[in-house]
């Protein structure tokens, strides 16, 4: 069987963060972690090509996923493997989106990443297999991935026992006890000191590693971002007032201010009277421009990024965060002020 492997710029040996903007490219055969994968899969299967792309490019350049998918499709693979992406958010999103797009076209695809990678939620109908948290765990991660790939190539299914995570297709099963009895059992378990027993796991907040401090503000491009739902008055892109599924960008390059009447907040979670009286209460462009002119900051990013933080799911918020970071990095911004309502 023909297998194509998708990896990022780092594992392809192109470079680290400095090469995160690298566009997609293909190489014959297996590269980096794909070599071990190829060995484990044996002689019946061949990793015919490796497609790689820089993480920033893959997650924030328009059309990047389509471009990656068409490079992969040209190899006529029987199955596509993406990752392992560990806990790398951008890499995980790229693997998940590539795999999801291929499965939607009828090409079987498997992505591998850690449970807490935001990509898990983005993989659509593609199979996601658990990997370790960091690249140090490459060995066991590749072993598990290769085993899952071998099962799929043999026409078998991959389930939780094989390390499948994310949207495992639901199957009806018959349980012994009705819901009311199970609920009482859980209450009793909790009273007995078991704090973790549940049938409905709640979303978890990841630990966030703080960015390194900025060295020299006067040479740093700063971005303004907000979840305060400030948009042009007509809300041309239809930002939701709650449960955001998207984020937007608006140009402020040629503006020194955001006048009332031209911008307004469509946030549905608080009274927007004050925001609409003076939009700078949400996006402080007036003062930021002043700081730029005085040379305190090296520059102000040409756009502000905006979504609405109101009942937003943790999974969507995590995705917005990863996309914002990639987008800002690509445009040269090295610090951001996020006004939160």
């Amino acid at each position, binding site marked *: 069987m023909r297998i194509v492997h998708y990896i990022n710029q780092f594992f392809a040996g192109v470079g680290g963060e400095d090469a995160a903007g690298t566009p997609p490219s293909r190489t014959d055969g297996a590269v980096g972690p794909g070599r071990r994968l190829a060995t484990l899969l044996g002689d019946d299967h061949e990793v015919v090509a490796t497609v790689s792309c820089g993480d920033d490019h893959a997650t924030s350049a328009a059309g990047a996923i389509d471009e990656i998918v068409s490079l992969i499709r040209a190899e006529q693979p029987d199955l596509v493997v993406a990752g392992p992406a560990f806990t790398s958010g951008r890499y995980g999103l790229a693997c998940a989106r590539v795999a999801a797009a291929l499965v939607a076209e009828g090409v079987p695809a498997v992505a591998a990443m850690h449970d807490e990678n935001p990509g898990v939620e983005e993989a659509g109908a593609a199979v996601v297999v658990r990997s370790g948290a960091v690249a140090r765990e490459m060995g066991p991660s590749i072993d598990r991935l290769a085993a899952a790939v071998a099962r799929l190539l043999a026409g078998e299914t991959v389930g939780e026992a094989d390390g499948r995570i994310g949207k495992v297709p639901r199957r009806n099963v018959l349980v012994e006890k009705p819901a009311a009895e199970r609920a009482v059992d859980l209450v009793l378990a909790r009273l007995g000191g078991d704090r973790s027993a549940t049938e409905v796991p709640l979303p978890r*907040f990841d630990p966030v590693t*703080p960015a390194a*401090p900025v060295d020299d503000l006067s040479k740093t491009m700063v971005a303004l971002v907000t979840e305060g739902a400030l948009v042009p008055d007509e809300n041309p892109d239809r930002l939701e007032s709650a449960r955001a599924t998207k984020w937007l960008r608006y140009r402020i390059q040629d503006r020194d201010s955001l006048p009332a009447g031209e911008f307004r907040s469509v946030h549905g979670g608080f009274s927007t009277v004050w925001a609409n009286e003076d939009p700078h209460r949400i996006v402080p462009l007036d003062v930021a421009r002043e*700081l730029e002119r005085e040379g305190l900051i090296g520059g102000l990013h040409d756009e502000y990024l905006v979504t609405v933080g109101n009942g937003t799911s943790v999974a969507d918020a995590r995705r917005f965060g990863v996309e914002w970071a990639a987008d800002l990095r690509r445009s040269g911004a090295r610090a951001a002020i996020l006004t939160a309502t």
Partner: protein
Amino acid sequence: MSIASRVGAPRIVPTKGIPYPAGDPSVGTNEERAWRRRLLERALEAVCTPVSKPTVFEVEAA
């Protein structure tokens, strides 16, 4: 602010209220603008400061 700490935001500058994170409608226009300036200056100090966990950067009274 407590939410920001709990979800792990590394650098936090407390503001006057949810509906106006970069303003303060209870004071006059000039005073509000001065407050906004202090907020942004404090936020910029925060991004220049190493932190290892959620850290609050209060704006000192004028």
